[in-house]
């Protein structure tokens, strides 16, 4: 890690709570002790994470672990309840409005659902061209600019007068990519960006992401539940479980020498093409509800190595080898 350059994106102790909405009577009843006050859901709980310029950071976790919430905070779409999101060392929230607007453009998001992420009432040309026009990013002819964006995303500009419903899922995802790139970002947050696509289309989009990275020097936060995809295109990987990062390291380390019992279980259970007629054995237990996370280490009820300490004390994420961080009490014993 070069000391000279600050990370492109830095999350410092970021938490996000979602309070359950309550009306006045409910609040009064809770204050009078008639009922228990509803807890807030701690979707993201004290996450520290850095993304360096030019790298692809894969963020892996199962549903409800808070990875999408984390991605939205990284993209500036959601403000953290606690902690700071620093972009090149600067906090969006502390910038003057105009500067913040411009700064926000440098981080763009690619969404999961290719059907919901495009405005159905606008033509493709407007979907892609609106933001750069509004922000004065187009020097010459707007149509030529839009054509160039579409072509770069692998779409025929001849279709730009069409509406989103006239495209397939893969093509819609390309439109979403063209829309994001049209405002010249340097950082893309991809939230399950290939999960909804067919296998044969998924490979095309992953390839597109990698081409764009080379062409434009993009940095990615790549959020996915698919370990195979993350392993393929990430430089570093962070594993999330119930709002916390449990392990983060270079991709070779995570997939070669997983440290955290959750990472180990996850890797063991991914079906692979190479393993035939295997006996599936599964870690016990359900994914706990984020509403009532277990005390101590969130993973302890399902962990084969759980000790009394795990029930009481949450392990901190600390470095166990250069560049390899893990949050497990087992590491203290060694």
């Amino acid at each position, binding site marked *: 890690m070069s000391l000279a350059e600050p990370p492109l994106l830095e999350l410092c102790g970021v938490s996000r709570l979602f309070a359950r909405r309550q009306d006045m009577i409910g609040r009064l009843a809770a204050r009078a002790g*008639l*009922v228990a006050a509803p807890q807030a859901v701690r979707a993201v709980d004290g996450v520290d994470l850095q993304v360096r310029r030019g790298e692809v950071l894969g963020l892996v976790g199962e549903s409800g672990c808070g990875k999408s919430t984390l991605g939205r905070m990284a993209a500036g779409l959601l403000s953290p309840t606690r902690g700071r999101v620093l972009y090149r060392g600067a906090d969006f929230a502390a910038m003057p409005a105009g500067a913040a607007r411009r700064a926000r453009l440098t981080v763009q998001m690619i969404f999961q659902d290719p059907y919901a992420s495009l405005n159905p009432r606008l033509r493709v040309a407007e979907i892609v061209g609106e933001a750069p026009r509004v922000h004065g990013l187009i020097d010459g002819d707007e149509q030529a600019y839009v054509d160039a964006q579409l072509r770069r995303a692998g779409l025929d500009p001849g279709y730009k007068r069409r509406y989103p419903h006239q495209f397939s899922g893969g093509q819609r995802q390309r439109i979403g990519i063209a829309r994001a790139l049209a405002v010249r970002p340097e950082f893309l947050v991809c939230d399950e960006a290939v999960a909804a696509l067919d296998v044969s289309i998924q490979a095309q989009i992953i390839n597109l992401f990698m081409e764009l990275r080379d062409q434009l020097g993009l940095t990615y936060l790549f959020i996915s539940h698919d370990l195979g995809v993350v392993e393929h295109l990430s430089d570093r990987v962070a594993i999330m479980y119930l709002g916390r990062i449990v392990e983060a390291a270079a991709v070779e380390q995570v997939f070669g020498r997983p440290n955290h019992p959750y990472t180990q279980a996850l890797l063991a259970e991914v079906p692979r093409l190479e393993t035939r007629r295997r006996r599936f054995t599964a870690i016990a237990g359900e994914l706990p509800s984020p509403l009532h996370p277990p005390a101590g280490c969130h993973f302890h009820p399902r962990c084969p190595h759980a000790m009394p300490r795990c029930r009481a004390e949450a392990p901190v994420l600390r470095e166990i080898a250069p560049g390899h961080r893990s949050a497990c009490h087992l590491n203290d014993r060694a």
Partner: protein
Amino acid sequence: MLWLLHRVIQAGFVVLAMTVLVFVAVNVVGNPADILISPQADQAERARVIAAFGLDQPLWRQYLHFLVQAAHGNLGRSFVFNQPALQLILQRMPATMELAVSAVLLSVLIGIPLGLLAGLWPDALLSRAVMAGSILGFSLPTFWVGLMLIMVFAVQLGWLPSTGRGRTALLFGVPWSFLTLDGLRHLLLPALNLALFNISLVLRLTRAGVREVLPMDYIRFARAKGLSPARIVGVHVLKAILMPIVTVVGLEFGSTVAFAVVTESVFAWPGMGKLIIDSIGVLDRPVIAAYLVIIVLLFVTINLVVDLLYTALDPRVRSDEAG
């Protein structure tokens, strides 16, 4: 439990808010003194009456007085009938309730089967006819249909009477029309008239529910279990569509009571709706106030009951803890 408390407190707020509105509507807009005091009265007489009715007090005092009186069931005397207004309204209430309940029963008994038919076989000729008819049903203005019913069945054909309740019989000390044949004959046309809109509503709601539920995975899964069509429609579909129907029928009961004003006017049905129209005509304010208070209480009760039923029917609402 909390939920019930919630609803009751909410209902209390609604009633309180409505009494303010009723008070403002009846006692502030226009000068009640003008109505209470004969124009021939001299200044001293005027002052005496104003003091007697508390009209010289500040508004909030007058409102409190109104509230206390209302709580004791005293909402003033009708100028026209010279009877306590509340008593007047309560006397007419059974007739209106009888009419409204009959109309709601008719709408459920006719609406649900026709809606099921139209939902299960949407392309059948009969279903299309039913749906076209239902548009007609909620397009026809109630009062005009009433006139037409009278013209056809009472004037032209002479089959059924057009006005009044007919012979009544006592039950729990209250006169009812549905207990005598003559009363039923009198009840039929107004009940049908009042039900027409609700029949269309229930029918369309049932059909929409069936169309929505039929393509659901759980219906296909029920078929995959090998269940009979009767059980799938009778248990899986019906139970799933029941909630919105119960809600709407419950809430429509209130609307029906309100709309009875129209039907009662057309058929000269001696209920509280006819009374209120007459009272508005002669500005009999205490009666209007009493009617409003009764109606507000009625609606708050209906809403509460509908909520309770809804909770009994939908398990997802009942344990809202998780979601």
